[in-house]
C-alpha cells in the first residue's frame, strides 16, 4: 500500500476532532436564493457571491457560531432592470452598503431542525433575525439546508413608492442548500 496515501488518511482523521468544527462555504457551495412577492406573484432571485463560516458541533451548540456575508452587488433575478433597481439606493444601496451580514451564536434544536438566532445587518440597519436549517454531516461535507423569513421594510429595503406592500411584499424568504467544507485555517 502506498505510504503517502496512508499518511494522508491519518491526517484526515486527525483533522476531525470532536470539538466545534469550523466549516466554510462560498459561491460553489450551492444556491443562496430569495423568494419575494411582486405584483402578487412570487419570484426567485439569487446571490451569486457569499461567504459562510460555521463553527459548530451539534453536541455543543453553545460553542457554535455562524457568520454569513452576502455580496449584494451579485444579486441576480434574471432581469437587468430589476437587478439594477435592487442594487440602487431604493433597495440594497450596494454603493454604500455592499454587504449584508448575519451573525449568530444562539442555536437550539426543535425536532430535526436547528434554529439560529442572531442579527442581520442590511443597508446599514441591524435587526434580530432567525435562520432555520437542517444539518447532514458526511465525511468532509456538512449539508446545511434551510431558510429565513425576513421583513424588508425595517431595513429600509424599498424606499419611496417601493414601500407599498400592496405591490411588493414585505416578507422575503431567503433559502439555501449548501455543502460546506472543512475550513482551511
Amino acid at each position, binding site marked *: 500500500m502506498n505510504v503517502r496515501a496512508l499518511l494522508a488518511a491519518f491526517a484526515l482523521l486527525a483533522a476531525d476532532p470532536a470539538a466545534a468544527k469550523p466549516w466554510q462555504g462560498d459561491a460553489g457551495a450551492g444556491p443562496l436564493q430569495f423568494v419575494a412577492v*411582486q*405584483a*402578487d*406573484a*412570487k*419570484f*426567485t*432571485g439569487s446571490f451569486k457571491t457569499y461567504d459562510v463560516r460555521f463553527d459548530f458541533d451539534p453536541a455543543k451548540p453553545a460553542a457554535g457560531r455562524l457568520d454569513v456575508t452576502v455580496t449584494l452587488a451579485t444579486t441576480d*433575478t*434574471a*432581469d*437587468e*432592470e*430589476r437587478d*439594477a*433597481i435592487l442594487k440602487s439606493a431604493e433597495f440594497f444601496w450596494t454603493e454604500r452598503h455592499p454587504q449584508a451580514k448575519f451573525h449568530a451564536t444562539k442555536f437550539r434544536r426543535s425536532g430535526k431542525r436547528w434554529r439560529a438566532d442572531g442579527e442581520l445587518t442590511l443597508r446599514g440597519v441591524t435587526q434580530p433575525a432567525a435562520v432555520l436549517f437542517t444539518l447532514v454531516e458526511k465525511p468532509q461535507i456538512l449539508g446545511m439546508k434551510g431558510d429565513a423569513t425576513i421583513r424588508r421594510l425595517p431595513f429600509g429595503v424599498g424606499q419611496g*413608492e*417601493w414601500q*407599498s406592500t400592496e*405591490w*411588493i411584499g414585505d416578507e422575503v424568504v431567503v433559502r439555501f442548500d449548501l455543502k460546506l467544507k472543512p475550513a482551511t485555517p
Partner: protein
Amino acid sequence: MPVRNTNERYGSVAQALHWAIVVLLIVQFTLGKIADDLPPGLDRLITLARHKSFGITILALAVIRLLWRLFNRPPPLPPMPGWQRVAAHLSHGGLYALLFAMPLTGWLMSSAHNYPVSWFGLVQLPDLVAPDRGLSHSLEDVHELLSNVLLGFAALHVLAALKHQFIDRDNLLLRMLPWRGR
C-alpha cells in the same frame, strides 16, 4: 335575441364574447403602450400586472369562444365572390390564432423574464419556461410584432364589415349586433 347562433345572426353568447374581447383588446393595446412609455418603476409594474391579468382573461375567453364556435356553427356568410370567402376565412382564422398567440407569448415572456403572472392577485400561474434573458428579449420582439399583426387583421376585419354593411348593403354588421336590423 336567441342564445345560440341562427342562420341569420350570431346568438347572445357569441356576441357577448366577441364584444367583450374587442373591449379587452382596446384596454390591452392601451396598457401595453402606456407600459412601454413608462420608466422602470412601480407604475410600470402595476400597469404590466394589469396587462397580464387582462391578457389571461382574453386567453380564457378565446378558449370558451372557440369551443362555443365548434359546437355552435356561425351563420353562413352572405353571397360573395370566392376570393372574398377565402379572405374572410383566412382573416377570421388569423384573428383566432392571434387571440391565443398574444396571451401565450406574453405569458412565455413573463416566465422567461422571471416576472411570473398573477391573475388579478387571485391565482399565480405556473411559469411556462425557466428564466432566460436571451429568450425573454426574443419573445418580447415576437409579442410586439404580433401585436402589430393583430392591429392589421383587426383593421381589415372592421373595414370588411363596414364595406359589407354600407357598400354591399347586405346587413352583415347587424349579425353581430343585438338590435334588429332594418
